[in-house]
């Protein structure tokens, strides 16, 4: 049986009761820790490790808006990335040691996402080689102050989210397909010819293993975010850059060796998504995926094995998603300040916070 942490912790509200519970038992029910980037009401950006009971456990002020966070395997630190077209990254230790700052090369910028090798030694980040209009994957040595030691081909334009398959060696990259250049800030320069792709590359050799493009009529469907769910099913979320009146499917499923399948939601929901998925995350067991639609103020839930839409819940400007320790349960964060626990059945319990939570969040296991 899965105990509800909310109830369990509540039952520990009295200190007498809390003392009566053995430490080892209490530890198993400790509030999950999460990390995410955000902005406060004064416009100051930060990234923080936090839980829903105590709030911030450690926060680091950022020079500009952050984006995603990556957890270093082994749990010694987490890394926050600049939102595109930013150039900073910061590794924040779990203990009190000072953060380690690093930058992209002068002719690169980050896209805001990164992933560690399973041994926690190397950090891979999606970056823009903007003078050549191609995406690259920067490789940094986490054991050596995050000094850049190499670069892999991203095999596409505008690589955004990336993740590792369960073999720990295959990298899957969402190439959004949109050409941008920091000189024109965030303008999209190639919407008529864009060609997004889902790419698998070998982490060690950098070789291209598999590349998938969507059907020709979906070439303006930018593949932006992804999550690796059970059986290495990659679930990806898209943003549509074509005509407003179109309502293409926005969620896709793919397993290596197969063709990607994009799946429509029921028509009223499809319209409500406003052609925009902001974040995709698998739950603890990998059987259910949540995908957020901040423009629609909706979180959608998906059954991975059946590749089926399960339902939604409403959360204004809800975007960041992280698994919790329980299956079918997610942390949901919102630019309006909400921190919520959402279940795949669409039920939601929320609490207010003082921050505009940014697009992504992670569970710090």
């Amino acid at each position, binding site marked *: 049986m899965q105990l509800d942490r909310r109830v369990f912790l509540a039952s520990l509200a*009295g200190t007498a009761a809390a003392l009566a519970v053995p430490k080892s038992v209490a530890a198993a029910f400790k509030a999950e820790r999460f990390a995410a980037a955000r902005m406060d*009401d004064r416009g100051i950006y930060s990234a923080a490790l936090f839980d829903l009971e105590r709030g911030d456990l450690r926060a680091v002020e950022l020079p500009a808006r952050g984006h995603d966070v990556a957890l270093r395997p082994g749990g010694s630190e987490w890394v926050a990335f600049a939102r595109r077209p930013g150039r900073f990254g910061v590794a924040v230790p779990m203990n009190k040691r000072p953060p380690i700052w690093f930058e992209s090369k002068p002719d690169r910028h980050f896209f805001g996402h990164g992933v560690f090798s399973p041994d926690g030694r190397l950090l891979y980040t999606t970056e823009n080689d903007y003078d050549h209009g191609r995406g690259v994957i920067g490789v940094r040595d986490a054991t050596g102050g995050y000094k850049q030691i190499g670069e892999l081909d991203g095999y596409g334009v505008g690589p*955004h989210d990336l993740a590792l398959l369960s073999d720990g060696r295959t990298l899957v990259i969402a190439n959004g397909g949109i050409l941008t250049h920091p000189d024109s800030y965030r303008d999209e320069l190639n919407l008529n010819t864009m060609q997004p792709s889902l790419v698998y590359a070998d982490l060690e050799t950098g070789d291209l293993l598999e590349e998938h493009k969507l059907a020709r009529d979906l070439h303006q469907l930018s593949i932006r975010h992804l999550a690796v769910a059970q059986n290495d099913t990659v679930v990806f979320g898209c943003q549509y850059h074509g005509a407003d009146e179109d309502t293409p499917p926005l969620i896709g499923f793919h397993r290596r060796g197969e063709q990607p399948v994009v799946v429509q939601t029921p028509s009223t929901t499809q319209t409500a998504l406003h052609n925009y998925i*902001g974040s995709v995350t698998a739950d603890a067991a990998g059987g259910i995926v949540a995908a957020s639609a901040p*423009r629609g103020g909706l979180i959608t839930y998906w059954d991975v094995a059946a590749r089926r839409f399960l339902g939604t819940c*409403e959360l204004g400007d809800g975007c960041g998603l992280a698994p919790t320790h329980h299956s079918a349960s997610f942390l949901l964060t919102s*630019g*309006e300040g909400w921190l919520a626990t959402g279940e795949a059945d669409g*039920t939601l*319990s929320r609490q207010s916070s003082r921050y505009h939570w940014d697009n992504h969040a992670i569970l710090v296991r």
Partner: protein
Amino acid sequence: MPVLRSVWLVLALVLIWGVPPARAEADHGAIAEAALTNVIRPGYAAFADATTALDGRVQALCDEPSAQALDAAKKTFAEAVKRWSRVEIFRFGPVNRKRRYDRLFYWPDRKGIGLRQVQRALADKDESVILADTLADKSVALQGLPALEYLLYGDGADALSHAEPEIGFRCSFAASVATNIDRIAHAVTEGWREGADFTKTFLSPGPDDPLYHAPKDVTLELFKAFTSGIELVRDQKLGKPLGTSPETARPKLAAFWRSGLTFPNMVGNLEGARALFAKGGFAEVVAEESPGVENSILFDLDRVIKVLSAVDQPIAEVVEDQAQRNKLEALRVALKSARETASSMIARGAGLSFGFNALDGD
């Protein structure tokens, strides 16, 4: 005095060309003041009055059990729920301290865990739940309105009307929950009184304040209460129990289904949101943006409130009734349009940063 001269020059130019029609930013201080004195404070005061009456009636029921006494206790419970519903949309301030919100209203109870805790305490005759002092340290699910609802309306509750020794424990449990609810309600009221710490922060936040740094932050807090209050009714209170069809309906997800207060609860939530809009200063902000639109928002909200108030079937029947389902689905559309219209205009008119993720995608 060159500075003074240039000031005069500017003034002269302004006099010649006229002041540009710059609209003053919304008066955030006035919004906070209006929301507090017209909506929040009277709302919690009314709730606390009702919980005191409830506490008295449940105690009277235990002292002298009878069908009439049980009925009277249920009536005061219903009144307390209605008044709670009007302040339920506020997730900030004193109700946010010491887990008071969850202690008053542990909901949704998705997997029935709260229910099982109440049932276990009943079965085990757990002595710590019959004293309000010790109850306050127990699980939040044992302490609030949903727990009391089960005790007064759930399986075996009818026996409360007979003076049987077996039922004494259940009644004592109910009485301690009622006392606990009353204490929390008064603590919240106290936390909002004039001169209280939170009240001071709320009415005149300073840059060093940990919660609100500027009056605009308070407006944002109220704005969130309004929009999320409508979201709550539309999605969680109506949408989730209804499901997409009678087959997928989950009426037991509804709040207060045992007491038949599901619809009064939703009505109260919307009345709270409506009051915040009409009396808390937001209607003026919208009127300033686009005169007349405030009335169409109120019209939408009033219509939904009216239809929901008229539902006299229990939620379990409503979800099976296609005509009712269609009607309620239409209300969800009306709520969505009211929320969207109001939120975009308030956000613009009050200069709130809004759509942090939605507006500038990535």
